[in-house]
């Protein structure tokens, strides 16, 4: 299965959350690969703590491959190459976790026919090998999003299951922007239909993910004065209504990840060690990530809407 991770804005939590989902699925035994198609800022490697790839690799990454300069893009075996203390000990029963990094100076580029064919070939190949292929796309209606829509519309890819996660933060602007990215005139659905996708099917394959959501009921805010607390609850409720009005409401949401202090400070994977042993991260965050990871392939979460 392919999972495309999109967001209208940068800084939504798309890369960090997607990387955590990939990690959770690999822990559960799936073979997972993560493609950094965030052509503007290929940072996914930093989240997995692999050396030399902190801001994308020098050459031989996905950009170089799509431009036809290498016949296969570089692959990084995360379990083997990570510098993360905990990740280095690969748990028994876990699946492969492979990162295909972007190039450091890649940048956005127009997608020609050859790049598109290479993209299709790569996705077919990875889909043959991995249970889950997560593709992190640049923010907005980027070339990366175009390429994903175009590639999945090709006859050769008809049989490949593809799903879309659209990330946003829990604010007015973010909710509006995310809904626009999906349903707007230049949005994903419209862009997909232009390329031959069936509107209903494509809509049925898109879900929103709310990232870094503050929970007014969380212990984090238990000390705030009552007026403040009431105000937060009201905001939360208003946002729920706004989201529902914009068709980004409950039935279109795959899940939310709470505001997590560790992620606020550092882009990283949340390990069980962080939650259970050192207790720096919250149990709720781990829970949310695990549920979200399970829902990626769960039939009930993906019926047509």
């Amino acid at each position: 299965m392919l999972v495309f991770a999109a967001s209208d804005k940068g800084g939504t939590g798309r890369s960090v959350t997607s990387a955590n989902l990939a990690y959770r699925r690999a822990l559960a035994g799936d073979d997972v690969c993560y493609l950094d198609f965030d052509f503007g800022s290929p940072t996914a490697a930093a989240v997995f703590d692999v050396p030399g790839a902190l801001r994308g690799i020098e050459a031989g990454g996905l950009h170089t491959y799509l431009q036809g300069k290498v016949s296969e893009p570089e692959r990084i075996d995360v379990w083997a190459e990570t510098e993360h203390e905990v990740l280095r000990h690969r748990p028994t029963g876990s699946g492969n976790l492979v990162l295909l990094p972007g190039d450091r100076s890649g940048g956005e580029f127009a997608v020609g026919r050859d790049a598109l064919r290479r993209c299709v070939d790569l996705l077919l190949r990875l889909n043959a090998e991995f249970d889950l292929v997560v593709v992190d796309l640049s923010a907005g209606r980027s070339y990366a999003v175009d390429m994903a829509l175009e590639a999945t519309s090709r006859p050769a890819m008809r049989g490949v299951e593809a799903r879309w996660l659209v990330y946003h933060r829990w604010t007015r602007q973010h909710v509006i922007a995310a809904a626009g990215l999906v349903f707007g005139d230049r949005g994903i659905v419209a862009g997909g239909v232009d390329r031959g996708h069936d509107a209903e099917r494509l809509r049925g394959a898109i879900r929103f993910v709310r990232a870094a959501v503050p929970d007014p009921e969380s212990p984090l805010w238990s000390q705030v004065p009552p007026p403040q607390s009431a105000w937060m609850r009201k905001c939360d409720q208003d946002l729920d209504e706004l989201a529902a009005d914009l068709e980004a409401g409950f039935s279109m949401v795959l899940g939310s990840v709470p505001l997590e202090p560790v992620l606020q400070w550092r882009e990283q994977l949340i390990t069980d060690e962080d939650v259970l042993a050192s207790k720096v991260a919250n149990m709720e965050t781990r829970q949310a990530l695990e549920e979200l990871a399970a829902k990626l392939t769960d039939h009930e979460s993906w019926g047509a809407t």
Partner: protein
Amino acid sequence: MTATGDTGTAEPVCGEVRTCLLQTSLSLTASAAEELLRLREDERVRLSERPNLHAVSPDVLTGVDCRLPTGSGARVRAIGTVAARAVLTEGRVLQATAYFRAAGAGPEQRQPWGHYLVRPGVLEPFGGLPVRAVADGILAGTRQAGELDLGAVSERLLTAVLRHQLLDQRPPFKSRRTRLRWVALRTRDGQAPSIRRFTLAADGLRTVELRVPEEIAPAAVAGLCEDLALHDWLLTTLVRMVERSRPGSADGYAVVTALRPAVDHLLHLWMPRARVAGALSPLWEVLEREPGFTRQWQTLVQRIRDQLALQAIPLPREALTAR
């Protein structure tokens, strides 16, 4: 084994074969296989149904004028064509081979293309061919820019076939590709064929070096290597499937689900030597002794059968109590 000191000079044949699961839910019938592998209008797909279904595409040629990789760093320019073909076994396992025969020596000047086109699948060096250096270069793990890359040629063909609309891209299980690089040096005077080395490296790369009598056609050598690669892929894939099924784990249903595709799609494919020219089939016997392909396969098959039998035992009892 041939006598030491034999350098197997004349006209080596070199190739690379890539092997993968065909990406369809059901294996292809003979006629679908024929359609899939019809790479050229002017030549037929070779089909044979005994002892298993085996389809071979016509050769497609790629013109090259480039350096050959060499182990010594010597610069050897060669011109001619590389042949490539796709092979489908039992409508299930797809392979693409790129291969060529290197002439022992060639003209010091580039000839008109017509000269090369009447020698399909032959590369001519400028001057003499340093056979050992080229053999080492072909088998080496890396390629320099500007050197002949057989892997890229076979990959391109494999990828093109995998894009075909006949394929629903819903394979019964996930699996990886393997690559086998091979070089066959030639023997003379009735010396028997032999295997000089067979290595397994990381990333699914295998290399094999052979000695083969010079009267054996390059396509027959390619056929032998495809047969080796096919069985190596089957073993590699089955080992991984058994590992992933986590035999012994509490979840019996998961074990069955993980192993079932092996029974449905892989176990009947084991048929070493089915497609190997008679003169080359003794080479298989060597591999059967060491590393012992069939022995390992049978152990795995037995393990799978035992697991499935174990999982079947509690079922009738549960069914009885459920009544």
